[in-house]
């Protein structure tokens, strides 16, 4: 596959997925490696995701046990040999298996679940407030506090080791913010503001994606969460380097109809701000592949029934890709 077959161009370096503690190392070693991934709830890198992953493994074990037990019982009951004496009091099977056992198991699970949700929601008061706005089909991130106002597109930078508060709203339809390695999802509902506390243990790149169907290009609505060491995050917040001047193709190919590139929070945007585009890819990518992606697989080209944007010519695409790679 071409590296940019999927339209949100993301690299995979700079991602620290190493387990933190020895106990975790043992646990992870026992798991099939297939459980890991940059967007896997089973590779948790934040307290919420960790607690949920732990709950999953407990429930998984219990469920396997119950499944084997019930299926074995059903098979035993059906495939029995003739002449075996029937159970003396068959009603007991119902009372024990169908009533007492599930009642006790579920009561325990419910208590555990309520305690866990309370712990996850009632986390310590987060210092930093960030606004997250869902658009079809991109994410807008705004930093109202702690420095000059700043906006990012499809990218969320947070300091690691500290909880941050996301204030989430939608500009059009319902979206859902889901970064499985950090936390469970929460919807962005028009007309209301939902709040999610997010925390990453260590610096690293986390991938997320819109989880509520929001129309044609729902699959392309991805977001990169970059957790930075707190001091580096403060530096980034304070620094405000102007982006390089775009090539003429930016206007000629109609890019400026949707995209800004100055990192300024402005209402009414139609596409993600491109400031910091290269950094969100993680690794220095293949400029040529990026150019071909712009030509053919950019979301505007993929909108099957809408052709209001013409594809850039190969030369334009090359110039644009070269420029995008410099947007640190």
């Amino acid at each position, binding site marked *: 596959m071409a590296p940019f077959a999927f339209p949100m161009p993301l690299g995979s370096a700079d991602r620290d997925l190493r387990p933190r503690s020895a106990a975790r190392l043992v646990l992870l070693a026992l798991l099939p490696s297939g459980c890991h*991934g940059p967007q896997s709830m089973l590779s948790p890198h934040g307290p919420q995701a960790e607690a949920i992953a732990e709950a999953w493994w407990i429930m998984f074990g219990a469920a396997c046990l119950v499944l084997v037990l019930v299926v074995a019982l059903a098979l035993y009951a059906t495939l029995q040999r003739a002449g075996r004496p029937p159970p003396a009091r068959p009603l007991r099977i119902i009372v024990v298996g169908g009533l007492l056992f599930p009642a006790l198991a*579920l009561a325990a699970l*419910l208590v555990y679940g309520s305690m866990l949700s309370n712990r996850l929601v009632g986390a310590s008061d987060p210092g930093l407030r960030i606004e997250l706005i869902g658009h079809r089909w991109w994410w807008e991130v705004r930093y109202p506090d702690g420095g000059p106002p700043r906006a990012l597109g499809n990218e969320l930078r947070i300091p690691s080791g500290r909880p941050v508060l996301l204030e989430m709203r939608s500009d*059009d*339809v319902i979206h859902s913010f889901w970064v499985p390695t950090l936390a469970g*999802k929460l919807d962005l509902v028009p007309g209301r503001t939902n709040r999610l506390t997010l925390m990453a243990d260590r610096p690293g790149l986390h991938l997320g994606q819109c989880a509520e169907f929001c129309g044609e290009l729902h699959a392309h609505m991805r977001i990169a969460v970059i957790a930075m060491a707190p001091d580096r995050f403060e530096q980034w917040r304070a620094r405000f380097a102007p982006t390089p001047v775009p090539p003429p193709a930016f206007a000629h190919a109609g890019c400026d109809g949707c995209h800004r590139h100055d990192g300024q929070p402005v209402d009414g945007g139609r596409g993600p701000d491109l400031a910091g585009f290269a950094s969100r890819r993680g690794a220095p990518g293949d400029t040529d592949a990026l150019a071909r992606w712009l030509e053919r697989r950019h979301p505007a080209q993929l909108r099957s029934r809408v052709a209001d944007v013409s594809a850039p010519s190969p030369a334009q695409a090359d110039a644009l890709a070269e420029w995008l790679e410099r947007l640190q």
Partner: protein
Amino acid sequence: MSDRRHPTAADAARLHADLAAIWANRPGLGALSAVNHGTIGLRFIATGFAFMLVGGLLAMFIRLQLAWPGNTVLDPQRYAELVTMHGTTMMFLFAVPIMEGFALYLIPKMLGARDMPFPRLSAYGYWCYLFGGLLLYASFLFDAVPRGGWFMYVPLSGREFTPDISADFWLLGVTFAEISAVAAAVELVVAIMITRAPGMAIQRMPLFAWYILATSLMIVFGFPPLIVGSILLEIERATGMVFFDPARGGDPLLWQHLFWLFGHPEVYIVFLPAAGVLSTLIPTFARRPMVGYSWVVLAVLGMAFLSFGLWVHHMFTVGIPLLSLGFFSAASMAVAIPTGIQVFAWIATLWSGRPELRVPMLYVLGFFFVFVLGGLTGVMVAFVPFDWQVHDSHFVVAHLHYVLIGGLMFPLFAAFYYWLPLWSGRMSQRSTAGAAFWLIFIGFNLTFLPMHLTGMLGLPRRVYTYSSDLGVDVLNMLSTVGGFLFAFGVGAFMLDLLLGWRHGVRAAQANPWQASTLEWSLPVPPPNYNFAGVPAVASRDPLWDEPRLPKLIAFGERYLGIARDGAREMLGTSPLDGRPEQVIRLSNSSWWPLAAALATAASFIGVLGSFYLLALLALAVAIGCFVGWAWSTGDRRAPDRLEAGGGLRLPTQYAAHNAPGWWGLAVFLCADATAFAALLFGYVYLWLSAEAWPPAGWPPPAAGPALLFAALLVASSAAIGLARASLRRARLFRRWFGAGLGLGLLALALAGWILLDGLPPPTAHAYASVSASVLGFAWLHVALAWLVALFVAERHRRGWVDAGRPLELRVAQVLWNYAVVVAVLAIALLVLFPRVL
């Protein structure tokens, strides 16, 4: 009865010939006018199966597109369309209708009845279902295929983001199909309550009937919220009134509440009939009665009840306060207990019986694995924090397919094998059936087991493609391969069933499985009238306890072994203990249901294409058809009392207390009251999320006209009551009844004035829209009651309603009083709510 001469074989043959002539469907195209439950039931089953194949075909395209990342079999829009249509087809056009088909076909046969109590309603329901499905698929012809997902969340499906008519196709098609579900549910409830064989007290009912009773009640209470939601959304899209748009006081979450108020019970509406199949098959193959009959009945009723308290578990991620999440999480887990009781009752029955591993039992065993796994992941997603992760991911896709395919399709396929000999007299070959089963079982698990992990690795549902970085490439390929195996399996199953039907081994006897329920006492294939003589039943397992029954039935012994007046007759019994109470004269084949359904379809198409004049005209024609239907229904000239066999002389339904018409109305009003409650819920919900109610600048509706409106209605109700009391004195009756009609007409006119004078323009704000809708709902009910009352007045004038045959007047009066209560509640809400709160 000892003095009665027992019929000879010649008598029996003559009786069968006479009954066959009375109950026959018309030949050729005339078959379209058929109303017999057997015919209609089979049509539902065949159509549902066809829709399953179409829905399955769509799924194959979906799996093909997801086989590897970046695939381009479908473009993003086409993918969204196919996903939407797959879900919609499977839920609304396959799962519910096919089980209704089984219920319509089997319930009378199991209960010892000759037909359903409202045969024309069954036929109308079938046509609504068929036309609704066709309407939905007609969207492909106009390239306006619904694409908002099967739960059509707003604002995505609102006019702003779906400006074409694709969403209207969905809303109207699905509503049409839902009318059919409610119609079938109403008559199944009535059939189970008052048409069981004499002696079949409620505690002797076959378990399948309990399951269908619970399912039908769930449809009665579960479907109206979605019907209301769909109508509100259609109104919002068509007229610009507001319910869901937050910019003008609406709330998109109201749609989710209404949808899932239906949507969760829906899951159990799909599962319970299938579980009923299991509770029928398992005792048969275990050769013993069900262990814990009462436990199972209580579990089924408990499940039906609990399933209405779970809907919010589809909304754990919308930002609802944790306390209410805790409540819904508890309820969602609690539903595992009645499920567990049933699973262990099945195991206990097998354990203490002598099970035979026949073909249907393969699917029963497959069910245990698939459904229990789906149930366990269901408990997991009821665990709130876990749901925050896997909600709307492929984990949930896997979960719901385990529950629905495990809970519905495995029992359904078992049911096909089980009842094939009843219908065709032949049985399937074990070897080919086994191959089909293993293909299905392995294919299914290969498709959906990996999907749990795909979801946990971060793949959301409804994405048309995915990135290789997720690490889900191999898993998706496995699912696709599994999907195709599964499809081959279904093909093999069909082939096997077809071969069994045409060329299978002839069943050695009419009851090849040695089952205990009454349907196996019938000849093969069962005649339209089922029972020549309606049997008397003395136990839960009549065929095990009374081997002579089939012979008695065939000879027309016991009840109603009479063919007279060319009339279709069935026996009505008392709801609890099953005492014979009435002879019900049913309608023969009729064109009215088809005509009414066609007119209904035309009016839906009018709304769809914004041809509102056509819609109104078609609606008028439809109302005309309903009047024609009601006018000719049953046998209006039937005598007050009839010989019912067994030395009994019973009233006909027009003179009977527990008449089907009265019960049908009562059940229908439950559904209607639920719709009203859903609308009131919408009103209160919007009020809760509004800053000011009414919005600034509008006074609350004036109290004066509202008070007058309520007073007129209460007075009209009193007048109708007095008319009923003076039914023996024709002049007095006419005077009071006329007064009631007049007062009702005044109130109807006044409502328009309140609407125009007391409320802001309905498109201004959600307050105005929802208030106008509440008032409109009330108005329509008073108008309907008024029309029905007029109809009854004419029937009275002609002498078909009198003190000895008060049924139609009773029905009209109950409807009238109900409409008055609705209207008074509505007006009180509109006037008081903005003042008091």
